[in-house]
């Protein structure tokens, strides 16, 4: 292995990212004066997009620990690094909670029909804040425990730490399944006041895992092109990463279609009120684009084995998947506020750059301080030699 040490301290990138962040702050504040609601829902979109990537990195690492996977040892630290944004997320969720009254109709209107009356107990501002604080505290706690154990292993090389992380990861994954479902209900599903659906949390999870994998692939390939991770992440590892992206794109479309077809078939008022605004008045074109970007693109392009281990192909497919994920969140959020299709304009781009800048700064800080590969892992040798027979 060569060049696995911490990232070089290249100030230029940080300056660019800091500029992005300032652009984001400026466009958020300008947006608050021009159209407060639009600024807030953009905040929610960007918040959820980067939440998905950060948690996706952690869930990826936790899955690898829980299954004692050997193929991903050299990639796992990248996923742990993506999670290092969560402390920043704690601050951004605190700001989001200020906008609850602008975003959610249950917060600014009194209950007026059957569906809103039945949700009145659960959907109160205070209870909402308590829940989100609990979920985020839980994720941050488990994330820090897992990442710190992994970092400790870099120094001590103690194989028992892997066992500890395995236990932590299993607990985390079980709790994560419940907490993320409820969190996505709170943050996204409750935007449409009549809508409730039990598959919604799984749909958000499928997007989370897919975008997490895509982000890991992008970071790994960028680092490799810049000369890092030489002899650490090789063709066989990229091949497995590409296979995962392809597999989870199928999972995503499976869940997405299950949600869509059942709502379409049953045509129940509380469910179809979600789908009708999202498949009319111009939104239907965006709706049709989502499966193309999130499923058909990775599925068709990554099907031949040659493409699945080609870094350039994986890189561009991952970019497409991330664009699809962003548009998916846009499609889930915005029709609740605007019946007719709304084009992306300066505020969307500005706030995306802002969050991207913040996210990039925090994650780069992590990679600058720690080794890019978990060098103390007992499975490292197996991973490097490819002796894992894909287990």
């Amino acid at each position: 292995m060569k060049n696995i040490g911490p990232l070089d301290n290249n100030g230029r990138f940080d300056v660019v990212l800091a500029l992005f962040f300032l652009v984001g702050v400026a466009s958020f504040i300008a947006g608050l004066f021009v159209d407060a609601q639009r600024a807030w829902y953009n905040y929610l979109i960007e918040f959820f997009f980067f939440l998905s990537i950060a948690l996706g990195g952690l869930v990826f690492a936790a899955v690898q620990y829980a299954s004692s996977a050997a193929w991903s040892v050299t990639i796992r630290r990248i996923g742990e690094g993506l999670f290092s944004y969560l402390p920043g997320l704690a601050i951004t969720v605190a700001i989001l909670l200020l906008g609850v009254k602008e975003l959610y109709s249950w917060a600014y209107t009194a209950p007026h029909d059957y569906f809103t009356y039945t949700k009145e107990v659960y959907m109160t501002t205070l209870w909402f804040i308590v829940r989100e604080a609990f979920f985020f505290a839980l994720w941050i706690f488990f994330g820090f425990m897992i990442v710190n154990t992994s970092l400790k292993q870099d120094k001590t090389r103690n194989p028992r730490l892997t066992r500890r992380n395995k236990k932590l990861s299993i607990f985390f994954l079980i709790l994560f399944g419940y907490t993320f479902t409820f969190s996505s209900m709170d943050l996204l599903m409750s935007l449409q006041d009549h809508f409730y659906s039990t598959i919604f949390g799984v749909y958000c999870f499928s997007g989370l895992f897919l975008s997490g994998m895509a982000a890991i692939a992008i970071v790994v390939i960028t680092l490799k092109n810049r000369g890092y991770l030489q002899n650490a992440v090789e063709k066989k590892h990229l091949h497995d990463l590409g296979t995962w992206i392809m597999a989870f794109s199928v999972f995503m479309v499976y869940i997405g279609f299950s949600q869509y077809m059942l709502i379409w078939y049953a045509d129940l008022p509380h469910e179809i009120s979600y789908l009708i605004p999202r498949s009319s008045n111009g939104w239907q074109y965006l709706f049709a684009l989502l499966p193309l970007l999130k499923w058909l693109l990775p599925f068709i392009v990554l099907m031949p084995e040659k493409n699945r281990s080609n870094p350039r192909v994986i890189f561009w497919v991952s970019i497409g998947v991330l664009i699809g994920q962003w548009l998916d969140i846009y499609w889930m959020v915005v029709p609740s506020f605007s019946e007719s299709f709304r084009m992306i304009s300066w505020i969307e781009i500005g706030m995306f750059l802002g969050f991207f800048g913040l996210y990039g700064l925090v994650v780069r800080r992590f990679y600058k301080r720690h080794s890019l590969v978990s060098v103390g892992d007992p499975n490292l040798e197996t991973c490097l030699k490819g002796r894992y027979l894909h287990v």
Partner: protein
Amino acid sequence: MPESRIIAGFMDDPEQFLEVGSRAREHGYKNLDGVMPYPVHGFEEALGLKKSRVPAAAKLMLVIGAGLGLLFAGWTSAVAWPINVGGKPLFSWQAFIPIVFECGVLLAGITTFILLFHLGRFYPAKDPKMIRERLTDNQFAVVIPVEDNGNIEDIREFFTKHGIEDVDEFEI
């Protein structure tokens, strides 16, 4: 098929199997074969086997099967016996997707199954001519046909040179 003579070297380790296989290919032996109890990743490259065309056939049959499924579902519910279900259009593609998917998978699956039997020259009640039972359990074999690759002594020597004691000849 006429009987032909093969020489097989047996080993217990999948890595050694890949190693000996690629050495045999580099040595210039042709029409190599490998026997393994489970798929070992990379054995096609190691033994220099040609890329299988089964996946292409499966893909083709997937598309044909899905198309036929769409036609059939559309014909039954919109042409042959139109029933109004909940006021939805007679030809509702959303309702057909599971059927289309299943038909595609079914035809691709059956094609793969039949093709594998055909290419392996295998059919029900055929005597499988197993060269050694442990190959279905935990042993691996690199198989070198004698006709294409010179004399028996050289091949045996090749195996001994790479540390394989367990070498045997078979008529298949």
